[in-house]
């Protein structure tokens, strides 16, 4: 069977009408294919996220990763990420605007099946959850160890004025959460609090808490990598997306 993929940088209209960069990987062929917005993590719009975006395309998704750091300047991802870190992170509203633009783009494609998921890890796990609560148009969301979903009042800033957990009632699609027992942000207690909120509002969710794993256990280039948990996590993730984004398969 023929297999092909096209992966390239492009642009999209994001927050505030800005035209930002994005990385778009998709399978060749007429489709129809589901779409996934791949929100990059705090270390930036980097090689790892390029790989993950292509991984989604390999599995038959129109995968679109907007550069949510576009407004901080350009250069190597770690330099830009350092600037973002020093600036206190990227504003939630900015990420939501860029994500909304990405959804609009994906749904406009002739090969789209109209189903859209959102995925993120670490800071972008938090943003994926936030997007699934505050934006319409998602059919599934995956939060991988998103830190800062639960926030104390002292942690709130002008860029992050509301703890995402406070938007749980507005969650508009099924949610998959992958977490590590040894993580310090989110701690198992944070995950438990989020789960209680999801239960309270009768939300459709699926959480997996992995033993002997901490933060970022998918990252094969970091000491946090946990092979067994990562392989299982990817399997669960794709099973979840297949169920909600490609229901006829």
């Amino acid at each position, binding site marked *: 069977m023929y297999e092909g993929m096209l992966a390239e940088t492009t642009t999209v209209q994001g927050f505030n009408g800005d035209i930002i960069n994005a990385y778009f990987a998709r399978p060749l062929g007429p489709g129809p294919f589901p779409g996934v917005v791949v929100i990059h993590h*705090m*270390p930036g719009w980097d090689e790892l996220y390029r790989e993950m975006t292509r991984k989604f395309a390999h599995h038959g998704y129109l995968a679109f990763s907007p550069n949510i750091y576009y407004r901080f*300047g350009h250069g190597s991802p*770690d330099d830009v990420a350092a600037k973002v*870190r020093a600036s206190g992170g990227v504003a939630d509203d900015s990420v939501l605007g860029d994500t909304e633009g990405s959804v609009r783009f994906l749904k406009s494609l002739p090969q789209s099946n109209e189903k859209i998921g959102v995925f993120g890890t*670490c800071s972008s796990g938090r943003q994926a959850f936030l997007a699934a609560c505050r934006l319409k148009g998602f059919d599934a969301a995956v939060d991988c160890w998103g*830190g800062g979903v639960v926030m104390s009042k002292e942690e709130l800033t002008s860029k992050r004025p509301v703890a995402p957990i406070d938007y749980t009632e507005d969650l508009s699609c099924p949610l998959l959460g992958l977490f590590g027992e040894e993580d310090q942000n989110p701690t198992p207690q944070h995950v438990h609090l989020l789960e209680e909120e999801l239960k309270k509002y009768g939300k459709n969710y699926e959480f997996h808490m992995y033993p002997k794993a901490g933060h970022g256990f998918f990252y094969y280039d970091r000491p946090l990598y946990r092979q067994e948990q990562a392989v299982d996590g990817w399997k669960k993730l794709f099973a979840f997306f297949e169920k909600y984004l490609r229901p006829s398969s």
Partner: protein
Amino acid sequence: MCTGIVETTEVKGSGKGPSGWFKLEEVNVSYDHPTDAPLEHALNIDFVNEKMGPGARVAVELSPESARKLVDAILTALSRGEDLSKN
């Protein structure tokens, strides 16, 4: 990168990046996930000049123990230098 712990201060001096020496204006010190050091969290120091763009950066990522040794070494060298200046 999930701690969000960062301290920033102005500095005067120069740093050497990939394109040579440049004027430093700020230093950002964070305790967070490093990019390269094989640690879960590191003390990251970025000497930067924001006006020159994100690439104007001299970066180090240190283990907490190494960072404390660096602080001690800086203070010791400063003290010895300032003592010499007084004489």
